């Protein structure tokens, strides 16, 4: 009688096969989880970007002309250098040219006097060398009381007049002027002159950056420094990238901001796929 001999798998082989199977399933599950986590992070990036750009119904709002900035206030030369460096960095990201009006007012009262008698308040600070070289971007580093008087004289929107009137511990703000064709033509940045240097630097950086079209803050943001937190902080790489995307000439002023935000998340999605 012929008997067929069947080899039974040894327990060791069974154990190895089981372990390999478990490892495969675990790796697959981990990869899935990582992929979901990455996708969630990218969706979160879209949500925050859209919010910072003013909401999904908002059109692209940005500068198109040269920014001529003037500084008002008695501040240190090192702070003036920092302000210039901020404008230079923004210019790199946006392609918008800038120029410092050679008429920095160290006595802020004079600014109030100047705007008091002007029909076009923002345009009153003009350079000495050329008559057409007037500031369309004024950085004021002055005390709250003076800023309140300036806010009344210009006049700025009621929200700024009220904010500077109260005894609240308000550090800084920006107030852009946007035309009906969605172009930013002027901006005023105010920073209190009694802040400690780290907070002063933070305020200057954040308000000047936001004046270029990143108008909103997203509370507890994962990516952006525009997060409603009042503390010394630095501009993030995402802040710069969103600004870069906003000034992409591939998108027109006044059109939807959605492609601006999606372009950024698409960049990171492609990067994740490449690095996988």
């Amino acid at each position: 009688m012929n008997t067929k001999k069947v080899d039974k798998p040894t327990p060791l082989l069974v154990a190895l096969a089981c372990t390999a199977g478990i490892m495969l399933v675990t790796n697959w599950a981990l990869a899935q989880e990582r992929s979901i986590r990455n996708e969630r992070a990218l969706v979160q990036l879209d949500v925050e970007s859209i919010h910072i750009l003013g909401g999904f119904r908002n059109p692209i709002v940005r500068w198109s002309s040269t920014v001529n900035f003037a500084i008002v206030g008695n501040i240190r030369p090192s702070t003036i250098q920092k302000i210039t460096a901020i404008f230079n960095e923004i210019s790199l990201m946006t392609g918008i040219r800038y120029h410092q009006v050679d008429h920095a007012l160290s006595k802020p009262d004079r600014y109030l006097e100047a705007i008091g008698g002007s029909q076009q308040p923002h345009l009153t600070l003009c350079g000495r060398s050329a008559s057409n070289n007037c500031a369309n971007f004024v950085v004021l580093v002055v005390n709250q009381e003076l800023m309140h008087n300036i806010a009344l004289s210009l006049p700025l929107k009621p929200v700024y007049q009220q904010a500077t009137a109260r005894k609240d511990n308000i550090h800084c703000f920006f107030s852009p002027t946007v035309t009906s064709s969605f172009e930013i033509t002027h901006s005023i940045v105010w920073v209190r002159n009694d802040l400690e240097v780290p907070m002063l630097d933070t305020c200057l950086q954040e308000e000047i950056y936001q004046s270029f079209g990143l108008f909103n803050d997203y509370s507890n943001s994962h990516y952006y420094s525009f997060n409603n937190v009042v503390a010394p902080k630095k501009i993030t790489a995402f802040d710069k990238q969103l600004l870069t995307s906003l000034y992409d000439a591939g998108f027109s002023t006044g059109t939807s901001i959605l492609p601006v935000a999606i372009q950024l998340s698409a960049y990171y999605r492609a990067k994740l796929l490449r690095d996988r």
Partner: protein
Amino acid sequence: MSICPVIRTGYRATVLVFILFISINSKLLFASDRVATTTHIKELESPLSIAGFLDDDQRLKIFSKALKSSDVWSHVRDGSEETLFVITDAALRIEGSAFLLEVVLLKAENTERLKKLMAYHFLPGEAITINELSRRDSVLSYGEGCIPITVAGDSIQIGLASFITETARASNGYIHFVDRLLWQPYEDNHPCSLSTSR
């Protein structure tokens, strides 16, 4: 035993030590006013041309691609004597400008912006060594922008905020690595001063 020779010898020794101390310190004090010692800046030598070096160095992929996409590239490729400022992918990511070069400036609508930016990094007709750079007040870029140079201690600052981190000698010029992109459009059309040497 007379004590005078001992005092005289001691006095002379003290004077010598004092002179030695002053001379060492004056070197330390005034070194920054003259030329950077550039001891911390890594120096490389390459048998390749600048174009070949860009192809070969894997750290410069983003900058290389952007440069090759710009109108400045043909001048860089064909130049016989030139200087180029470059920035590594890692430094671009730290600066937050990798997205600018990898996505936005590669679009047809932004061709002029890319050309202008790349032009700041290219000095045609001059192979400038790191030591020569440290002796100058400014350099004139291909885009006619005058880029100031500041020497502080053993660091060389190019433009407003970029520092040289590494330098390479290629067969047709020099490549200087900077930690940030060069950009200062307000200096456009400002002629560099005639005396550009310290």
